[in-house]
Structure formats: C-alpha cells, structure tokens
C-alpha cells in the first residue's frame, strides 16, 4: 500500500514542484510506515528520473509511450488511476499546478476518491480519515478538510512544502498501459513557453508593480529588478485591465495566487482583492509614494517614495549584494 505521487515534467525535466510533491509523499509514507512510488508520464531520461530517489521515491514507474508524450488530462488521469490501482495506493499526491488542477479532479472522480486541493501543510491521520489544511476564500482564510473516503487525492500548492532530501535506491519500471482512443481526442497544436522567464506560480521571488508605475513604458526597470533577483514579474488588476501587462501576470483574488519567499510590491496601493492573492508570501516588501497606502499594513518592510526613482537604485543594490 504505497503512496503514489505523480510528477509533472516540463520538456523532460523536473522542476522544483516535482521534488516538493515527492518529498511531501515521503513524509506521509514515513508516518504511515510505507514507501513512495513515483509515476512519471512522458519522455524523461533515466538520470532525470533517478533524481526522484533523492527525495524519497523508492520505486519509479515511467510511462513513455508515444501517444502519451504530451499532457492530455483525460488520458493522464486514466494512467494515474490505473497505476494507483496496480500499486494498491490509497493516497495519491500531485502538484496543484495549472495542469494539476485539470488532472486531480479527474483522477479523484475515477477512483471515487476524496480530493483535497490547494493543500498547504502535511496531513494528519485519525483512523482511516485524513485531515489537511488548505487555502480557502482566495487566501483570505484556511480550511481544514477531512477526507473520509477510502481513497484520497491531495493536490499540493506549489511552494508550500520545501523539498527535503531523503536518499533511497529506486528501481525504474516501465509501464505500458493500454490507452483508450476516447482519451486521446485532443490535439495539442502549440506550446509557447517563455523559457527565459521565471514562472509566476512557482517563483521564489516575485516583483510586482501597479499603477504607481504611471505607464507600460516604465516597465523596463521592473524587468531589470526581476532579472537581478531571479524573480518572476507580476502586476495588479488595474494594470492588466488597462492592457499595460498581460492577464497572465495579474496577481490577486481573481488572478494568480502566489506564495513566494519574497514579494516586492511597487506602486500598488493594496486593495483587499490584491492582498488576498499575496498574503501567504513569506516576506512582503512595499514601495509606495503614499505613506497611507493600505499595503503597508500587511508588509514586513516598507519604503516611501517614487517607484521610478527607487527601483533602479534597488536593482543596483541587489547587483552589488550578489557580486559580494
């Protein structure tokens, strides 16, 4: 009765979120005195797969047949459910990533499992029930969910569980499940990924800017600060609504919810909807020319002043710090 963890790869590579979920599964396995089986779907080389053993997987199952090379949630859900059955896994862990959000419910429905999505802590157990804390009300609150069903699926929020090394020796097994043609009736036409940029939901540092930047032409200094920090860029809703920045950068209650180690808010006043999207950031820095801006009330560090003057200086200070 292993814990099954599904690990997502991007073009054959595992990102931090993959190690986060393996590590999360390993912590549950320790508690339950069992082991972790990691399942990878798609074309991933064995030396990449072996990295999963370093975070606690003691068995690695790979599915790399041609028709499953690209992510199709229907087909992947069938493979994960089949693997859960063959591993007799009652607990299935995956990342609550964009793809994970479209996948976890399908897996849960196939297995008639209870699903806790957006989990931010490790679960606790009482008898056969599993209890886990998750975000609710767009980060304005937390909820404790109890899964009473026999089978349990946990979708773990990115950046909420630090990967912990735990060396195991793992054999790689190849699984070649039969795939129903009805699961493959989706054609992936194009994938556009900005490889030079840090992905926002998983970023450890986020540099976010608002109307205080006065116009889209001033964003170069935000990009430079983000580059100096190795950060993702983000923006407030009025900025994406005005078309200064794409919707994919909008952080807040109706945009992307982030929980980085460091969130730097520049020229953002801090409306309640924006705060909801960033409140679980570990450290918040606010730079605003209005000392009364509500954002200062939820910040760890604040600086009052004009963003256009402060940001280039901050970039230089970060570069100087990194050079030391």
């Amino acid at each position, binding site marked *: 009765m292993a814990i099954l963890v599904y690990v997502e790869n991007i073009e054959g590579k595992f990102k931090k979120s993959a190690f986060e979920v393996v590590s999360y599964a390993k912590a549950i396995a320790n508690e339950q005195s069992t082991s972790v089986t990691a399942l990878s779907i798609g074309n991933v080389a064995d030396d990449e797969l072996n990295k999963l053993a370093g975070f606690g997987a003691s068995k690695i199952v790979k599915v790399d047949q041609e028709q499953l090379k690209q992510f199709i949630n229907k087909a992947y859900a069938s493979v994960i459910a089949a693997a859960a059955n063959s591993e007799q896994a009652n607990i299935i862990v995956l990342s609550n990533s964009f793809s994970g*959000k479209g996948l976890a419910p399908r897996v849960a429905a196939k297995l008639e499992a209870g699903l*806790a999505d957006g989990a931010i802590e490790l679960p606790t157990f009482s008898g056969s029930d599993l209890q886990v804390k998750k975000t*609710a009300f767009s980060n304005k609150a937390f*909820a404790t969910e109890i899964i009473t069903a026999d089978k349990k699926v946990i979708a773990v929020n990115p950046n909420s569980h630090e990967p912990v090394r735990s060396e195991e020796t793992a054999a790689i097994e190849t699984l070649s499940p039969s795939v129903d043609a009805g699961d493959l009736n989706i*054609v992936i036409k194009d994938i556009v990924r*900005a490889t030079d940029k840090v992905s926002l939901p998983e970023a450890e540092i986020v540099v976010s800017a608002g109307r205080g930047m006065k116009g889209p032409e001033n964003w170069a200094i935000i990009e430079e600060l983000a580059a100096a920090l190795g950060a993702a860029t983000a923006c407030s809703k009025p900025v994406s609504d005005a078309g200064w920045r794409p*919707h994919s950068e909008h952080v807040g209650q109706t945009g992307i919810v982030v929980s980085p180690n460091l969130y730097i808010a520049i020229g953002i006043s801090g409306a309640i909807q924006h705060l909801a999207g960033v409140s679980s950031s570990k450290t918040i820095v606010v730079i605003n020319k209005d000392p009364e801006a509500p954002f200062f009330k939820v910040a760890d560090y604040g*600086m009052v002043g004009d963003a256009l003057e402060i940001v280039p200086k901050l970039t230089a200070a970060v570069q100087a710090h990194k050079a030391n």
Partner: protein
Amino acid sequence: MRILVCISHVPDTTSKITFNSDHTEFNQSGVQFIINPYDEIALSRAVELVEGTDGTVTVINVGDASTEPTIRKALAVGATDAVRIDAAPRDAWFVAKQIAHYATEQSYDLILTGRESIDYNGSQVAALVGELLHIPSVSIVKKFDIQDREITIEREIEGGKEVLSTQLPVILGTAEGVTEPKIPNMRGIMSARTKPLQVLPAVDVPTLSTISKYESPAPRGQVAMVDDVEQLVNLLHTKAKVL
C-alpha cells in the same frame, strides 16, 4: 448551439471573510453575494456565442432559494433560461454530480464554468463534470473559438500557454481574457423577471470529504519602514534571509 453555464453564488470580492464562533461556517451576515467573477466571464462569452443565432444559454446553479437573485442577474446578462438544483452545495463533488446528472439528460454542445470559485477555490467542477460525462475538460482557458464542431482552446500553463483543439461537446473552466464581463441593460433586467427558472431536487451523493473548520490568517507583525535601498537589501539578507 446549446450551451450550459454553471454559476456559483459567492461573496463579493471586497468582502471581509469571517466565521461563526466555532469556526465551522462562513459568516454571511452583511455580505453581498455576486455571480462568481470567473463564471460571469463564462456566461458573457456564452451569450456572445449565441447572439443572433437560434442557440440557447441555460444557467445552472446548485443552491438554496437564497441564490435566486444571482440567477436572475445571470438571466439579465442574457441567459435564455435557468435551472436551480435545490440543495446547499456541500462541496465540488456534490455540485459536479448534480450538474452531470442534469446535463446527461440534456446533451449540451458546450458546458462552461469559471476556472474556480472565489470562495472554496476548488477549480474542480470543470474536470469533475468532464470525467462524469466522459467528455474532454480544459481548465484555465484564456481564449476559445468554435468552427462547426471543432473548438480551438488556449489554456494557461506555467510560464506560457498551450493551444489545443478537440470536438464538441467539451467543458471549459474559463479565466480572464475569454471576454469582458457583460453588464445587464434595462431590457435584460426587465426580461429576466419572466424568463423560466426551473427548480429541481438534488440527487443523492455519498460524502467523500468535509470541512471541519476554518481559520483566518494570522496577522503580520508591524511593518519596518526603511529609508534607503542598501538598508532594505541588508535586512532582506540578514533578517528575512530571503536574499
């Protein structure tokens, strides 16, 4: 084309979220309820798609009678008719089962809902209904277009986007970008009062999970104001340990 739009009745985005004294229930007093903003985008796109055609847009909500003003607002935006499944929405699984049960008997070409609700943030309904109806589901849809029976969809992925296509029927969880939310006009508001709103009983669904309690986030400590960027970088390095 027959479109079904699943809408959720949620606290207004400016609401302060508080709970009853034993932290088991959301405190609704003084809270304004709205159509979930992502569902409103889905609905607006559906109305756009059938405009000037003989297509229909049905909205479905799982809720008690208190959600009817929200349903009437959806009718004012331009939905043709509405269905309310008369039950308190226990969780996403319960809601998805109700919607799937209703939709099975109706055969819609397209089912739309928001990428997630802003209250329980499940982002589960689209994929659950897709699985229950054995149709494709795509979550976090930024854009889509339909030509004959073929639908081309742009969905959000980490750091970019993916374009995919499939055949109708399909269920989508829509996000910002699909269209702008439509504001009901006076004619819409007047006609919404007389549009059909059917109330149906819920089907039984076994409970797989429950919420035992809610908590509000712990308040942050006092903000430390700094005067220059060197001091800030130094504090982030030595104290916050994030640089």
